[in-house]
């Protein structure tokens, strides 16, 4: 059961909605109608727990959606303006990830039922990017209902659907979520007639419910309690998802690699061919500068891409520890940056005839890419709603990463015997400390960026 009491929702300095109070019983469906910008989407996002009300309370089965209890999110299904879908995954893979994050029993059976109900069985193994808007919307509906939520929130569920699919909407909900309390917004009268038990109209920051009457509810079947999705299980699922997307899309690694090799070429030409600086010193400087630049560039879209697609909302609604999202992103960036750095190591060694390919340099590279990625992944989450993200990320991250670059340079100079070998260990000590500190800060602080 969903209960909203005296809800006032503020965005900026303006109250979008004031004193909204209503209850939705299990199996009941309420349509929220209103003009563009009246606050329908804001209301649905607030009920889902993606936004916080200024005052008032929301309870889903007696528990607030914004709470430290991740389990309450398991009881909410949400379809936003954009379905929470990954374009480079198939329809089935999108549902499988959702099932894992929600710790579902018998996910295969439920996934097949969902695909059949939303009419996607034939296209189940095709990539979502090949789908029309209507097909994505149908799959998005299936994704929101996959885990049989007790509260289902649908923001314009008919968007992009053809008339036949709109006719089918009541059947989809009745099949997949027969006992859910449903709140949906729409501009389509046919959808209201077909779906809604009650209608709420948003006007002048108030929601009016004419003819409000409680629906008679019969006995409800007992739901199986889903398994708790553990921190490492969630982080692994998300890491595998990101790695698979990168493998298929090849958006990050090849471009970062070519960019850093180009930087190496330009710097080497400038310092060796023109200024005639010592090769070993140039190689060290170029290596660590380009690793830092590669990580910064890689981090720009780390959370930004998820935010633009709307899939970050999907992850934040999953009943998982938010820090697992951070850990997955950090791992992806670390591995990408390490790979690019290792290639750079080989390239600079060949280009300048400097013996950089040694165990200690590779070890320093592994530690430093970990530390740099930990900082950049956290900053990447801070800038998703900011303007000029591409400039802001280096501005925030590069000064913080300075100790890592200093330590990397120090360790490499000792490896190349430019400085005494005994000086190598303090630099490794600093690299280890920075890695531990930055990663701990990221894990502890990331959840605050998602509230």
């Amino acid at each position, binding site marked *: 059961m969903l209960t909203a009491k005296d809800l006032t929702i503020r965005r900026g300095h303006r109250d979008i909605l004031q004193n909204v109070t209503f209850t939705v019983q299990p199996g009941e469906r309420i349509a929220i109608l209103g003009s563009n910008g009246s606050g329908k989407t804001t209301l649905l996002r607030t009920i889902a727990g993606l936004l916080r009300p200024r005052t008032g309370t929301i309870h889903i089965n007696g528990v607030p959606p914004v709470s430290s209890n991740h389990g309450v999110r398991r009881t909410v299904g949400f379809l936003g303006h954009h379905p929470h879908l990954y374009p480079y995954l198939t329809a089935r893979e999108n549902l499988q990830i959702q099932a894992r994050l929600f710790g579902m029993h018998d996910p295969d059976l439920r996934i097949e039922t969902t695909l059949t109900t939303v009419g996607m069985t034939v296209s189940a193994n095709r990539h979502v990017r090949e789908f029309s808007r209507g097909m994505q919307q149908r799959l998005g509906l299936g994704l929101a209902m996959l885990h049989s939520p007790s509260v289902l929130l649908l923001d314009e569920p008919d968007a992009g659907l053809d008339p036949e699919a709109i006719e089918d909407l009541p059947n989809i909900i009745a099949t997949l979520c027969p006992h859910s309390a449903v709140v949906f917004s729409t501009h389509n009268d046919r959808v209201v007639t077909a779906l809604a038990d009650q209608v709420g109209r948003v006007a002048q920051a108030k929601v009016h419910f004419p003819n409000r009457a409680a629906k008679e509810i019969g006995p409800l079947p007992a739901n199986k309690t889903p398994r708790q999705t553990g921190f490492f299980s969630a982080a692994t699922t998300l890491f595998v998802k990101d790695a698979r997307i990168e493998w298929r899309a090849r958006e990050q690694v090849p471009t970062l690699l070519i960019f850093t090799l180009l930087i190496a070429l330009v710097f080497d030409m400038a310092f060796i061919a023109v200024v005639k600086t010592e090769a070993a010193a140039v190689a060290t400087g170029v290596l660590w500068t380009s690793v830092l630049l590669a990580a910064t560039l890689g981090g720009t879209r780390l959370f930004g891409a998820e935010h633009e697609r709307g899939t970050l909302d999907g992850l934040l609604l999953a009943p998982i520890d938010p820090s697992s999202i951070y850990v997955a992103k950090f791992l992806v960036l670390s591995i990408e940056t390490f790979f690019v750095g290792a290639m750079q190591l080989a390239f600079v060694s060949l280009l300048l005839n400097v013996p950089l390919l040694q165990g200690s340099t590779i070890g320093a590279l592994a530690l430093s890419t970990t530390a740099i990625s930990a900082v950049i992944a956290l900053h990447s989450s801070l800038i998703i709603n900011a303007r000029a993200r591409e400039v802001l990320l280096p501005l925030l991250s590069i000064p913080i990463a300075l*100790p890592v670059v200093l330590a990397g340079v120090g360790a490499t100079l000792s490896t190349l015997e430019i400085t005494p070998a005994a000086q190598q260990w303090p630099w490794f000590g600093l690299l280890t400390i920075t890695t531990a500190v930055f990663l701990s800060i990221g894990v502890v602080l990331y959840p605050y960026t998602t509230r």
Partner: protein
Amino acid sequence: MQSRLQNVTTGLSFLLLLLVMGLALFAMFLFAPAERVQGDVYRLLFVHVPSAWLAFLAFGVVAFGSVLYLIRESSRWDRLAVASAELGVLFTTLALATGSIWGRNVWGVWWQWDPRLTTTLVMWFIYAGYLALRAYIDDSAIKPRMAAVAGIVGVLSVPLVWFSVEWWRSLHPTPSVTSPGGGLPGEMLLTLLICVAAFTVLYGVLLRQRMLLEQASSLTAALIERLHTRSESPPQ
């Protein structure tokens, strides 16, 4: 009543500031003797050291305000953090500028790649980034939270920068106030302490005024929004 109390407190704080700054100027230029080797240029120390101290204090206050904002979610702590960050950038700039002018006279160059100088400049960039983040986020509902996280990361990185500096051979003088046998003569030390106290009062007064300004700015934005909403809604 609250407004009158605020006016009285503001008046008293400015009076105190006037007194301590007057005393500091007297001590700096008339009480402290000229240095045997450096002459009068050493007097920059009386601005440089307090500025550097206040830069660290200000960034500590940013972290304090940021942590409390994340725990309490009260805009008061966000106002404290932003006000202190701006003052921190101001005092870091002052410390760098006075250090550079002193260096030109003593070392013969405007800038040395001395690790402590370099990392002070890095600290300036960390907090310039913090202020840029605030400037580039338009949504006032999420801005304080994002800034609070950046403020905590920034201050936690300062010790790392500090230790990385310690591991490089520094040209910077060791702390001369506390070193045995190498301390400042009595009048110079007393002047330095007066200047530190006066600059700390200056920081406190500016911090309070900046916080009040931030509060007024927030109230004005809310009033403008309310007027817009009223003019947009149809007549009843």
